[in-house]
């Protein structure tokens, strides 16, 4: 049992606590601790990634309680991949924030660490109730981060965010209660075994519980009809927060993939493939609504928020295709859309600063101070997110469509995804030309953004280029991840391996 697995939650927990204690020591100390804690996550995630890449499933029994009784943390390929993605995104967002945005409100750094604690915890936990707890941690941190900087728009958006998510948490608990009543366990591996062996008279309770969980995860992933809270919230949030939030919808998608893939998968007896019939229609509806939202926007931040919803919808469609190829394509798409989405939020803030008064409204106004640099970055991001060649968004979309060819929903998936892609190109080129070309005679009025914020935005946007350059090994990894997810017996066997072993760690010779 390797203690390495615990580090992705331990580092932000200790870092966050330390930041609360040292809050009075000044900005420099605070930023150093925050950067050190966030940067430390990256090597840990990469180490876990390299261990998991061999196919090994790393398991940590908290307090050394044997599997179904205690809480287990599990890192397989999927968890390691998501941890790495979160670490990269968090580091870039924090680097952007330390250039000045973190001073616009109190407690930015402790909250940022708590947010990372929640996100990382949700990715590695192997227990349904523990997933709820980590969700709550990431939510309460996100409420406060969303308000960072203050102002009426943020308060209004936060009120909706908090009320909806509190209602969602209650539904989550009802789902957990129903599943516990039917099976008597909350460990996901144990659940997978018991649900597949469930009697017919428990089927109703199990299906109700599973679908309630789907509703909660859909709320987090901002799917239609539960996703209308997202655009105002992300539009109002400050740039580094919005960039970090780009992974929040992916936490919802991850939870659907994990819980409904493992517990309510095809072998789940009376509750087999519970979510699958819902995913493709809901995902396509989300894409359609988000595309209309993108077209209707007169402001860049709101447009980007709709793009986040659109990427969640595309991911859900891919998961609904329910094949290994589609899951692999979805993971590749998630990497690209998260990095580019986060990068575009940072870039939009740079544009707003350099344009001065006009901010990011798509009106005729002063240009930016560095049109060549920011224009190129915007172009890369727009091409990456719209799914045009030569960047990774294109490859991701091709993989998803390829996996949909043989399916029953092929016509719908192809038409919605392709038409949405076309409209996206229209909207993004309108936004880009509005900001960079339709400029008045007055010289740029805004300040010039510094090197650090510019390079952190560029770092995330160039992620799409890196993903394309490394598409071979990366898709090989996502394919291995998809086949590992399909092999439920290996996951269950790995987690339940120490069942009945109750000897203390000291007698087993573990450190």
């Amino acid at each position, binding site marked *: 049992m390797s203690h390495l697995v615990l580090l992705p939650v331990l580092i932000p927990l200790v870092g966050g606590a330390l930041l609360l204690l040292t809050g009075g020591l000044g900005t420099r100390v605070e930023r150093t601790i925050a950067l050190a804690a966030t940067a430390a996550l990256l090597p840990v995630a990469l180490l876990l990634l390299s261990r998991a890449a061999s196919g090994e499933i790393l398991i940590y029994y908290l307090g050394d309680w044997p599997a179904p009784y205690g809480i287990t943390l599990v890192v397989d390929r999927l968890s390691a991949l998501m941890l790495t993605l979160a670490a990269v995104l968090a580091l870039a967002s924090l680097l952007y924030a330390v250039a000045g945005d973190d001073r616009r409100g109190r407690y930015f750094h402790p909250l940022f660490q708590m947010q990372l604690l929640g996100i990382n915890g949700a990715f590695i936990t192997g227990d349904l109730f523990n997933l709820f707890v980590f969700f709550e941690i990431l939510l309460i941190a996100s409420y406060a981060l969303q308000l960072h900087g203050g102002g009426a728009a943020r308060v209004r958006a936060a009120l909706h965010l908090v009320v909806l998510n509190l209602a969602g948490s209650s539904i989550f608990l009802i789902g957990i*209660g129903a599943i516990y*009543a039917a099976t008597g366990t909350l460990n996901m591996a144990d659940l997978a075994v018991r649900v597949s062996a469930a009697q017919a008279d428990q089927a109703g309770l199990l299906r109700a519980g599973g679908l309630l969980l789907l509703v909660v995860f859909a709320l987090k992933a901002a799917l239609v009809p539960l996703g209308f809270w997202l655009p105002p919230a992300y539009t109002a949030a400050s740039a580094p927060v919005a960039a970090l939030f780009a992974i929040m919808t992916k936490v919802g998608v991850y939870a659907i993939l994990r819980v409904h893939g493992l517990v309510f998968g095809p072998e789940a007896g009376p509750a087999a493939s519970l979510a699958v019939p819902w995913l493709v229609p809901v995902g396509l509806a989300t894409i359609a609504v988000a595309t209309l939202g993108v077209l209707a926007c007169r402001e860049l931040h709101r447009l980007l928020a709709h793009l986040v919803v659109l990427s969640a919808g595309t991911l859900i469609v891919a998961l609904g295709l329910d094949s290994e190829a589609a899951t692999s394509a979805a993971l590749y798409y998630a990497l690209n859309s998260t990095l580019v989405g986060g990068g575009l939020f940072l870039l939009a803030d740079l544009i707003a600063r350099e344009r001065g008064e006009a901010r990011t409204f798509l009106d005729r106004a002063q240009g930016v101070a560095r049109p060549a640099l920011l224009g190129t970055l915007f172009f890369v991001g727009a091409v990456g997110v719209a799914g045009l060649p030569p960047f990774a968004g294109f490859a991701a979309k091709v993989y998803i469509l390829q996996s949909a060819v043989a399916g029953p929903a092929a016509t719908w998936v192809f038409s919605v995804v392709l038409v949405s892609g076309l409209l996206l190109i229209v909207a993004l080129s309108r936004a880009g030309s509005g900001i960079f070309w339709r400029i008045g005679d007055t010289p740029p009025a805004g300040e010039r953004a510094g090197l650090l914020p510019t390079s952190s935005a560029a770092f995330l946007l160039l992620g799409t280029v890196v993903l394309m350059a490394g598409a071979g090994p990366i898709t090989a990894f996502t394919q291995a991840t998809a086949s590992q997810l399909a092999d439920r017996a290996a996951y269950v066997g790995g987690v339940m391996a120490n069942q009945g072993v109750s000897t203390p760690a000291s007698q087993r010779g573990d450190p």
Partner: protein
Amino acid sequence: MEALVSILVGVMTASAVYLLLRSHTFPIVLGLSLLGYAVNVFLFASGGLTPDNAPLVEHGIARLPDPLPQALVLTAIVIGFGMIAFLIVLALRALRDLGGDGVDGGDAP
């Protein structure tokens, strides 16, 4: 006993949903608290109801209550309490910043 608990949870949830659909923040806070209570009782019942039994381990009693839902409820209460506290502070701030206690800011009908 099962009927009593079911009716209790049902009435609380129905009242909570009614309050949640109001257009002012105060009833919504009340509604979410009430929903929290309903959920806690539901979670508590998910381990099965064992009336006339010892609450904890006692010698000579074969049928023990399930301790896990109690732990879950305890965690859920703590989390719910923190969340409601945050929501109340946020609602007060919205009252001040947005000039009213409507859920969309400003005055609601």
